[in-house]
């Protein structure tokens, strides 16, 4: 249902994959849902900066929230991806024991996984390992067939767009600066946001506020008077490898985890689009938005890559990126605390999510179900009969369709015949669809995450001038207003020659 002025029933703070999953879940019901996201698109934080792995659930203590929502989320993913038109590849995972000390770890993980209800777990010998992944070395491995890969930014965007299609209000470029708690029971929260583009303030009045602000969830807590939590940012760096190596990995391969490690270690992960990513590292940092890549880690990732893929060339490393984990424990403590998913008794109507790091991506739809139940305790939820779970999108890029299908589509719409991104063979129509996205996101990265343009080996060298021409000549954008991802990242300074009109010759 559309938000009436600035009144809403539920206000979700944070448009990452969890916030967007909550928005979509709540849009099934006759309730007003609004989501505010401080960046200029959904998913610009940790949600787009991770390995894209759907974890099976054997890494988590039985009885923990993490175990519960991960296993449930994993089970929901096939239907969700089918409905939203997203690729998912159930390639499974091998967790490998490299030496004898790892064997008890594997046994523990198997027991843990069985207790968590993870399907199909099996400890397998080297011959079986070889059948799943040629050349993999180790004493034995835990095979989890339900491990899978998806595109994390595509999932986040699809969730948000489906929520919007079903009546949720998604407001981009809105940063929450103040939260005033209800003056009396039954009254609303007042949440103030500031617009990134023009600094304008807005106030949202909501019966229920959901804090899904990720790396800033502790700051949002403090705005609501909750001081229990502190987030410690822990950065993970990645490399993206050329699609030339597509097919080198048939399954995920991880080393058996070491206790108290802040993450699951550096590994090679295939992506659903045919790249391979190496990473992530783990480094506690000060800045929550410090996505820089560092020389030491990059060198370590390159070495790891060469060790694991002997045919790797320097030109195969096409890009770096980094994501930041929202950890609840400082570096001296390390490890992982359980997810915080709570309906605060001390602040009634404040549903609080803190420390949703891995497996937050897998868990998102299950966390949304839990949040829905918490919301239902405050607002009666009646199902809509016109909720449409389907996005109507194809999971495939145009270039992945068979030639005769493509030929017919081009005959009907010539924009499908014009290739704009040479490396990924992305067509003009796909670029136009990305520009005209239903959320109204207006950055180059928004086009990239929707249409895949600039993600190939030339990293935009060929398509950027062409996309620029389309934005300027067909959509009337002024070059000085083209943004990479935020109001602080303009691509251009304007025109070389400004329009003067007429012939001065």
């Amino acid at each position, binding site marked *: 249902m559309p938000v009436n002025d600035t009144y809403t029933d539920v206000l979700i703070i944070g448009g990452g994959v969890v916030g967007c999953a909550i928005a979509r879940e709540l849009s099934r019901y006759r309730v007003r849902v609004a989501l505010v996201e401080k960046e200029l698109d959904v998913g610009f934080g940790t949600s787009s900066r991770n390995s894209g792995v759907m974890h099976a659930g054997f890494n988590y203590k039985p009885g923990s929230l993490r175990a519960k929502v991960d296993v449930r989320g994993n089970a929901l993913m096939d239907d969700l991806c089918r409905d939203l038109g997203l690729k998912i590849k159930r390639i499974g995972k091998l967790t490998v024991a490299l030496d004898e000390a790892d064997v008890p770890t594997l046994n523990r993980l198997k027991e843990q996984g069985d207790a968590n209800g993870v399907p199909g777990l099996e400890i397998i010998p080297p011959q079986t390992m070889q059948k799943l992944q040629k050349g993999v070395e180790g004493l034995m491995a835990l095979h989890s067939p339900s491990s899978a890969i998806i595109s994390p930014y595509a999932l986040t965007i699809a969730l948000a767009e489906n929520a919007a299609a079903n009546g949720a209000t998604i407001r981009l470029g809105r940063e929450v600066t103040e939260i005033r708690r209800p003056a009396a029971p039954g009254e609303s929260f007042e949440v103030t946001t500031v617009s990134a583009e023009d600094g304008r303030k807005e106030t949202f009045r909501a019966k229920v506020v959901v804090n899904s602000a990720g790396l800033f969830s502790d700051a949002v807590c403090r705005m609501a008077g909750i001081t229990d939590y502190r987030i410690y940012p822990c950065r993970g760096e990645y*490399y*993206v490898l050329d699609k*030339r190596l597509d097919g080198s990995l048939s399954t995920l391969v991880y080393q058996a985890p070491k206790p108290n490690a802040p993450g699951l270690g550096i590994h090679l992960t295939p992506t659903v689009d045919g790249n391979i990513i190496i990473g992530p590292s783990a480094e506690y940092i000060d800045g929550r*938005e410090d*996505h*820089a*890549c*560092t*020389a030491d880690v*990059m060198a370590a990732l390159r070495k790891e890559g060469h060790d694991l893929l002997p045919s790797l060339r*320097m*030109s195969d*490393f*096409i*890009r*770096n*990126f980094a994501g930041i984990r929202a950890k609840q424990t400082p570096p001296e403590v390390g490890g992982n605390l359980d997810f915080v998913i709570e309906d605060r008794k001390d602040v009634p109507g404040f549903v609080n999510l803190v420390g949703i790091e891995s497996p937050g991506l897998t868990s998102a739809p299950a966390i949304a179900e839990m949040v829905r139940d918490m919301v239902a305790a405050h607002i009666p939820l009646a199902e809509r009969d016109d909720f449409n779970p389907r996005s109507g999108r194809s999971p495939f890029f145009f*270039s992945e369709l068979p*030639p*005769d299908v*493509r*030929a*017919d589509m*081009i*005959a009907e719409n*010539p*924009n499908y*015949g*014009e*290739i704009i991104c*040479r*490396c990924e*063979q992305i067509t003009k129509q796909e670029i136009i669809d990305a520009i005209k996205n239903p959320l109204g996101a207006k950055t180059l990265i928004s086009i990239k995450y929707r249409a895949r343009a600039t993600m190939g*080996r*030339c*990293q*935009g*060298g*060929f398509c*950027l*001038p062409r996309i*620029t*021409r389309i934005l*300027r000549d067909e959509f009337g954008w002024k*070059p000085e207003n083209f*943004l*990479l*991802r*935020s*109001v*602080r*990242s*303009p*691509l*251009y*300074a*304007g*025109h*070389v*020659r400004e329009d003067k009109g007429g012939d001065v010759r």
Partner: protein
Amino acid sequence: MTLAIRRLKACVAVIGGGPAGLAAAVAARNAGCGDVLLIERDRILGGILNQCIHDGFGLHTFGEALSGPEYAGRYISMFRERNIRSLEDTIVLSLAPASEGGLEILASSRAGLVAIDANAVILAMGCRERPRGAISIPGDRPSGVYTAGAAQNLVNLENIQIGKRVCILGSGDIGLIMARRMTLEGASVESVFEILPYSSGLPRNIQQCLNDYNIPLFLSTTVTKIHGRGRLEGVSVAQVGADRSPVPETERYVPCDTLLLSVGLIPENELSRMCGVEIDPVTSGAVVDDTFMTSVPGVFACGNVLHVHDLVDWVSVEAAQAGAFAAAYAAGSAPEAGIPVKPGDGVRYTLPQRVSGARDCTISLRVGAPWRDRSIVVRTPGSASEERRIIKRTKMVRLHPAEMIRVDLKAADFAGASGLEVCVE
């Protein structure tokens, strides 16, 4: 199968309408092939020359110092005068040997998908620029970092001002040309940084693009970090040691809002690889014989897709030869070339990688480091059965990695040799 996929036939298909493709198509036509088809992905012919608005093109070919568009214009005229078919705004998606012989091209345009059956194909796709990710510069990923060629396209063809305060990494000609271009259009170019101890650009460009405008060039220096959360704010630079690793104590910060990367060109051989063409790991281009045929029968290569050139005049010469040979192949001649040519001391690569001894030919090569007063020596390598023999010695005053060297050989001089080696003495 839908009727929506057009089928075309061509005797010789040329992929790419830049200087190589144009010269090859014209030569194929001149050699008697009546059925040449050129496929170009841009809406105009001319390729990279369209954005190279500075002069210096054509001194050898036309005896004039033309701009890139003018040089392209001359060849486009020759092309049009011969009524050669062209498909513009058409991009080749795949290339493969056809089951019945010949080659099959699948291409896409607004008019639809088109399948082209050709007896011979000339690869003339040019090259792409090495991006930031491939040279692993640490730091943030703000807006304002461009490869020099993409910047040249935006400034020269789209009238876009990309930034005001510019640093350039890489002193190859593209970086130098853009230093001048940005300065002339009102930007302030702070510095050019070059990781090697010498510039890889022509001396004329060092003088006329840097010295004229007091833009400093720092050799043995590289960018060690990029700073800026939104737009670029500055770069850290440091000197490098003999192993090309940064020396941390020399690191300093240079404020700027634009960083241009001119850090190498990579021949665009995705289609070639798709077709099974053997690629030389040093040139990143096809392994060819003295007819410019690759390891796949009927597939020829010329221009920057074969090896990165510095003078367009030699692209035109090379492409004309490839065009003529492709036409001959399509008409039924199938020459063989069995004499391998290898780079020796001081030489980074030689091309073609095989010659026949039945024809005169030209060996193109690049040296690995700058030299003065040396000779390029072509000789047989010598073995148990054959004594080492010097085929040709060419004295040169100046040898530089940035300048391709061409040595003409007469067939009679080396026919019968079991191999050739080219080295610096």
